């Protein structure tokens, strides 16, 4: 993705993040995600029905990278089946860790294509993914 376009996408999602709101609904699974080496701290709320991610919301104190990464993640995961969501998450993780990944499915997530070059900010981009994986794990444990 073009660098300037990527920057614009990140800034847009930072300025107007999707679904940034508190949730007080017991149907939602709530997980906290934070990085030990920085001050980002997010609560992520996940709603799954019939194996499909119906909704994700988030709230917390986080930097521009974390906030926009969360917003972009939410945009791309809502409506996906759990297994497809996992594939998206894996690809994003791979991209951030300089491993092989499928560009075609990441959409705006590609705005973070170069984040691996800033090792101290890589974890900011990955923070919501850490959280959502935790939420999915909890969901699956519950469903077992």
């Amino acid at each position, binding site marked *: 993705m073009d660098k300037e376009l990527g*920057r614009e996408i*990140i*800034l847009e999602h930072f300025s107007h993040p999707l679904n940034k709101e508190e949730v007080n609904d017991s149907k939602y699974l709530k997980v906290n995600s934070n990085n030990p080496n*920085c*001050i*980002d701290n997010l609560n992520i709320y996940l709603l799954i029905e019939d194996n499909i991610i119906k909704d994700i919301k988030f709230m917390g*104190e*986080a*930097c*521009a*990278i974390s*906030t926009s990464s969360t917003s972009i993640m939410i945009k791309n995961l809502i409506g996906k089946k759990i297994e497809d969501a996992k594939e998206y998450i894996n690809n994003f993780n791979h991209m951030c860790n300089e491993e092989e990944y499928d560009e075609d499915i990441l959409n705006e997530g590609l705005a973070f294509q170069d984040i691996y070059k800033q090792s*101290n*900010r890589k974890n900011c981009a990955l923070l919501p993914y850490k959280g959502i994986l935790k939420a999915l794990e909890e969901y699956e444990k519950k469903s077992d």
Partner: protein
Amino acid sequence: MHREDFPLLKQDLIYLDNGATSLKPQSVIDKTIDYYENYSANAHRGDYDISYKVDLEYENTRDLVKDFINAKRKEEIVFTSGTTDSLNLIVNGFFKNYLEKGDEIILTKTEHASNIMPWFRIAGLTGAIIKYIPLDDNHFVTLENLQKIVTPNTKVISLAEITNVVGDKRPIKEITKFAHEHDIFVVVDGAQSVPHIKVDVSDSDIDFLAFSAHKMLGPTGVGIMYAKYELMQNIEPVNLGGGMNESFESPSKMVLKEVPMRFEAGTPNIAGVIALGEAIKYLNKIGMDNIFKYEKDLRKYLIEKLINIPHIDILNLEADSGIVAFNVEGIFSEDVAYYLNKYGICVRAGSHCAKLTKDVLGVVNSIRVSLYFYNTEAEIDNLVDLLKDKDKILKEML
């Protein structure tokens, strides 16, 4: 002042995070190396020449610390691993045995974690109650507000002399006078004050003091616990082992060494303690009053510039120290810190380990600039120039 003495300043860096740790002058670094190269024996075993030299140097630092804070006796100085260790020793070694159910511990909400968490635990163990001094509009402690919450059950007041986010300097001497009239002990967290102002424990009459070497030009891993000599007998050592006992035969037959040695079990941070002595000599040469005046002037210079930037919100306009906390409107503090880092400027973003401070300031996170005597007006100009243009921050923070 004295920038040429600090090797790190040869790099293209503007270091404004002195509240976290200070830089080290060459003399302190040399002193550390000298120990490892020329006499790296253990302490308290003066059976041969280089070991004897270790004892002399190690105890010389104790004398230097005693004079630096104007303690009455060198036995009142205990070497620890840092302020946190010192505060934990004070709380767990003394107050754990002293406090009873219903006793009151007075703190403030702007304390560092290490002056809150040990008290929380001890409150849980003893049934003592934590109370906070209400702060005034500037988030300062006043004697009047303290007087309002003291009761006959109040047993101890523990507070920082200078806080690490608000940067306010507390009236320790007045507080202590009042406290002692009511048989209340005073514990002072000196982490942010001892490196920057003249601290005189005899004049203020405080009972306990904790501070760290690394924030005052010394090495990491060394701290000081000061306690009045008459209280030291009642502090129970937290660590038992080598170097602190006279003899031991059975659980009921353990004879401890005299104070302060009984608090320094195990091999201490010898190189660190010795190098701290060098740091104190260096600070004495400049003079603590000169350091404080310089920092206050530099802070004023910074405030006068920041106050004219509309998108900057200063959280502690009035503070008698070198600490300035602020936020850039609409931008997360850590993003601003990343942006400044691109220009070689080191500042701290976050809650600065003072997580109750959010109740006072109304914000969780902030950017903190903390000055020392080697910072300059030119560095401030550089910082302010970068903060002036909000669009530039937004553009370059990613």
